């Protein structure tokens, strides 16, 4: 993450090293020329490309008693408008001690049925293409996939598809009606989000299966918005390679996450498939595509291994969101404050930058100020601010107190930004 504003949430950059001015981008990568930009021609990708679309898996960590995996991958979102690959360039080295690869068919638009006899058209009708703008960066977009789980428009997708985005929309079946989307809640730790298509009713839904009955070797069908191209969802077939996998995913910005309990699938899935259904031979959704392990080099990218959140786990989180409580769930959409915060702090969260037009900037907060409380939560450092923000949702009005560089305290009431269209 750079000091450049990329979203309206509080985010942080490490403090500058001694002797460097506040606000300088700091990191080992800039301190050592060997960490400089790559020498190959610059990617055509715009600088505003989203963090989510570039996420790449840096590790596949197997569960106990099974082999570790290797290779790179990505979380499967892509930029529809920018139409660039996720540029994840590292061929996979699948499972040095674990399962091998079993070849699968390539990606193709669905045409009504799959080789396994699954009625693809029926599932397609309950699949949506999700598109959104990256908060704070209007030139960047993110696209992914979702599946309709209630006729009133509840859609299950990955958190990383909607994280840090605004103006989310969803189009049914790639060519059907497009809806504005409201985020009902999410679980970042498990990369699950529940969103709602505004004003929807009478929609077809996917049929849910039981992921606990999955076994290695089971054949699955993966449906998604491959490469964010939109249109009729793409379909690939795959085979369950392992269960209960732990993976760490990252991207070129350094953002990373570690996910556990994942289904490993041998399948040629693509960026943009994130949030899409993985379907068993009975046409039931048993997993949600979440990440891929790359195989290929240069600007070619195919993923021969994918990772999915088991549907039982996803639905458990959905039910927690519906009930308004859960160990890791956030209810409502993310609250966006519009500040970059220097990591650490002792007398408040030090503002490194603000996003023009964001809630913090509108309140008069400027770089160098220290946020000392928000919404009744005392803030002494960056952690406190992050933790406090988890208590709020977009659109909520909260009191915020900060101290300016002269030591004067200020308090204002702000309306936190929202990731989605207002209802």
């Amino acid at each position: 993450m750079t000091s450049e504003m990329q979203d309206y949430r509080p985010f942080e950059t490490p403090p500058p090293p001694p002797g460097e001015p506040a606000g300088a981008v700091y990191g080992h990568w800039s301190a050592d020329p060997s960490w400089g930009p790559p020498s190959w021609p610059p990617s055509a990708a715009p600088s505003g490309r989203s963090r989510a679309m570039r996420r790449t898996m840096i590790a596949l960590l197997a569960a106990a008693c099974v082999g570790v995996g290797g290779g790179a991958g990505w979380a499967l979102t892509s930029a529809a408008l920018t139409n660039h690959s996720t540029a994840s360039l590292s061929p996979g080295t699948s499972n040095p001690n674990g399962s091998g690869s079993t070849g699968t068919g390539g990606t193709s638009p669905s045409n009504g049925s799959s080789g396994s006899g699954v009625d693809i058209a029926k599932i397609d009708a309950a699949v949506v293409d999700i598109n959104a703008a990256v908060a704070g960066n209007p030139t960047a977009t993110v696209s992914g996939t979702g599946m309709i789980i209630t006729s009133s428009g509840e859609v299950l997708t990955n958190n990383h598809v909607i994280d840090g985005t605004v103006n989310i929309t969803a189009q049914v079946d790639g060519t059907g009606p497009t809806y504005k989307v409201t985020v009902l809640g999410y679980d970042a730790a498990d990369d699950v989000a529940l969103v709602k298509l505004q004003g929807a009713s009478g929609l077809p839904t996917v049929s849910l299966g039981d992921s606990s009955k999955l076994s290695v070797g089971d054949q699955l069908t993966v449906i998604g918005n491959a490469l964010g191209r939109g249109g009729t969802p793409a379909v690939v077939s795959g085979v369950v390679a392992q269960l209960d996998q732990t993976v760490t995913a990252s991207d070129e910005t350094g953002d990373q996450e570690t996910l556990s309990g994942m289904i490993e699938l041998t399948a040629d899935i693509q960026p943009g498939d994130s949030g899409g259904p993985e379907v068993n031979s009975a046409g039931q959704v048993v997993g949600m595509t979440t990440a891929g392990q790359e195989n290929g080099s240069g600007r070619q990218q195919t993923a021969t291994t994918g990772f999915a959140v088991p549907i039982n786990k996803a639905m458990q989180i959905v039910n927690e969101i519906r009930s308004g409580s859960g160990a890791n769930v956030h209810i409502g959409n993310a609250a966006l404050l519009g500040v970059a915060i220097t990591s650490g702090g002792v007398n408040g969260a030090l503002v490194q930058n603000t996003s023009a037009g964001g809630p913090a900037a509108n309140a008069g907060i400027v770089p160098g100020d220290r946020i000392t409380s928000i919404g009744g939560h005392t803030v002494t450092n960056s952690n406190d601010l992050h933790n406090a923000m988890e208590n709020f949702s977009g659109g909520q009005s909260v009191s915020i107190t900060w101290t300016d560089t002269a030591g004067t305290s200020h308090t204002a009431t702000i309306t936190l930004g929202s990731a989605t269209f207002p209802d």
Partner: protein
Amino acid sequence: MTSAPGCWALHGELVARGLDWVAGRGAYQLRTDAYAAQHATNPDPRNRQSVAVHLMSLCATFELGFEPGRTTSLIGGWTHRPGGYPDLISNERHGDLTVVDALAAEGADAYRTTIERWARSVWQGWAAAHDDIRRLLAEHGLG
């Protein structure tokens, strides 16, 4: 993180060489830990979690004497922590070795050795957070 795309691509290049296949689980795990911990950027809760669990893996390896790779089976149990993981990011340089050094290693033995040196340097680069990481491991009865 202005030059991170370079690191990211170099890491991909490293993985592409496939030496994990021959160097084994330990090298695989240490490479993963080293890269993740060396690329701690912003303390978004997911970043905090991932960085913390990989630092815990390094701690278990270099301080508790776990065989490299043994933590592979443990990390999945560390991903969820009530209240999330603390922000461990500091302005230290997290290790003198980088993925560039690993790329320079020729052959499985050199690769394995370099990966271990890289991982150890990253762990040492996080010295200011060692106590915090030990406490996190202690929450799981380790240490």
